[in-house]
């Protein structure tokens, strides 16, 4: 494991990622809904190959951060830099093309389509056909369909799901649907993968397997991962850096060891000890 070291912009990066542009950097990111400040002054830097965790009590604003990063919500203040480029003015689709892929807390698969087609929809931006080659079945249609088919099965094999390719996505068990969402996100060839509670509804052995797979994805695809998770075994097990959010504000940042012993974090999760 490499260590966190400060970089010139006064932020922390993993030693192995130093010298490369951070994949994501946010400055004073915040959003208000009416008079309510949901997220405020959110500062985050993620290195090229970092696995980072975003934790916090229910309602802390974790998913809102994901929605801000992917422009489902447009931030009220602050900037987001993706590979050093500002994302102002981009919409959700453009953000994905620029390199952020995500999964959803409440699974959003194309339930009526097959597993394979779900992954092919993920490959959409990387298929070089257009409406004309699709209608007239030009050679490029056959070539790209064949390529998409192979890539889809290859991606499904990460989770050992290639045998389920012809099944309807909506009929899969809960855990498999979560895994399929990750595969679909990976199909878009991101440089940053956002996972919203990937282990929700999984049993301990499935969670352990998921941890290995997330590491493997990072190593094989050379991408960064930011995940929201309530399962502390998973968070402490694979995250190199952790950000703790409460009431929309960052209350702590650091390595898993630092977070575990941080009194502010313990207070946010368990409440304050009553003084007698």
């Amino acid at each position: 494991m490499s260590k966190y070291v400060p970089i010139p912009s006064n932020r922390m990066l993993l030693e192995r990622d130093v010298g490369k542009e951070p994949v994501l950097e946010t400055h004073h990111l915040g959003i208000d809904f009416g008079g309510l400040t949901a997220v405020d002054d959110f500062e985050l830097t993620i290195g090229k190959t970092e696995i980072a965790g975003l934790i916090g009590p229910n309602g802390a604003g974790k998913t809102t951060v994901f929605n801000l990063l992917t422009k489902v919500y447009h931030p009220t203040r602050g900037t987001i830099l993706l590979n050093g480029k500002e994302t102002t003015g981009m919409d959700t689709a453009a953000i994905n093309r620029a390199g952020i892929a995500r999964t959803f807390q409440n699974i959003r698969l194309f339930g009526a389509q097959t597993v394979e087609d779900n992954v092919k929809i993920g490959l959409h931006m990387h298929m070089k056909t257009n409406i004309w080659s699709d209608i007239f079945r030009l050679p490029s249609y056959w070539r790209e369909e064949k390529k998409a088919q192979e890539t889809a099965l290859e991606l499904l094999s990460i989770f050992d799901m290639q045998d389920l390719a012809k099944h309807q996505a909506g009929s899969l068990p809960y855990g498999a649907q979560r895994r399929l969402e990750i595969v679909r996100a990976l199909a878009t060839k991101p440089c940053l993968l956002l996972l919203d509670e990937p282990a929700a509804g999984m049993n301990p052995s499935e969670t352990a397997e998921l941890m290995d797979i997330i590491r493997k994805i990072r190593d094989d695809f050379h991408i960064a991962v930011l995940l929201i998770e309530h399962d502390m075994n998973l968070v402490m097990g694979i995250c190199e850096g952790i950000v703790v959010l409460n009431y929309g504000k960052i209350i702590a940042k650091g390595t898993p060891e630092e977070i575990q012993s941080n009194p502010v974090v313990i207070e946010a999760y368990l409440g304050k000890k009553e003084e007698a």
Partner: protein
Amino acid sequence: MKKWKALSPQTRSDFITYGIVIAAFIVLRLLSAFGMLSNSLTGLLVPLCAYIIMAVSLNLTVGVLGELSLGHAGFMSVGAFSGVIACAGMESFIPNPIIRLLIAVVIGGVLAGITGFLIGIPVLRLRGDYLAIVTLAFGEIIKNIINCLYIGIDGAGLHISLVSSAELGLNSGRVVINGPVGAVGVQKISTFTFSFVLVMITLIVVLNIMRSRTGRAIMAVRDNRIAAESVGISITKYKMIAFITSAVLAGAAGVLFAMNYTSLSSSKFDFNQSILILVFVVLGGLGNIRGSIIATVILYLLPEILRPIQDYRMLIYSIVLIIVMLTTNSEKAKLYIGKIKARLTKKNAKGGEQGE
């Protein structure tokens, strides 16, 4: 047979659909060759094909894209009247009626497509049922514009007026569109074979779109807008593609339809017409192309065969539509249908075992 089994279920289903249409065409051709088709039924074949194209193309908007359109007859109208004008203009220098019809179909389709594009620009960016509202208005507007449109043609070219046919100032030419009377003096050049070819083209276009990258994107937009955006699909672009394709095909169907009558009034393409086509689509099943064809054939031919209930046609349609909507949305009805299905398949399975 082995090759057949190796195909994906979707491809197989598509080929069955093509097969059904081709077989129906051959049977009808044979029947008419042996003089076994009544005159009234023969007269219905071209409009039936036009309605099939309408239903299949509307299914692309309503079933595949998941946006409600209530003005599909408006596109048909744009195609029909522009086709009539184009045909009248070409009469003098293109003697072959089939080539003239073909060019008119292309012109009608393109113009309807452009109209669809203009409607789509503002509306398809919005979420919600705005498309239904705007297309509803569009259908009425087109009907009323053509109602007060006078177009004549002579050696000098097209003459257009919004007042009366006398204002056209024609010398030795003829009036093509005569205000509330509609298109007059249309040459009946639509043929059943041409209609069949157009139906096949429509089917190939729509089914090929559905089974491709474009179609998957369109269906992704329908199934889960946020997820579709999250994988980089541009929502507006694919809504546009589906809607414009649907409009182009409707325009082509309009030309086919218009060229089957000697005169045609714009009130033929009113709200009832749009709803009639929507009924075909809903009864055939949203997103189910073969279903649209079958529903159109049954619902279009039934009133003609059962002439006595003609007066109650709209009443029966509305009742059937309500029943279908209720049964497809009610959990109890679904459960009941599921039970019947399970019982039927069980019986079949048993029968199969005994047979072996």
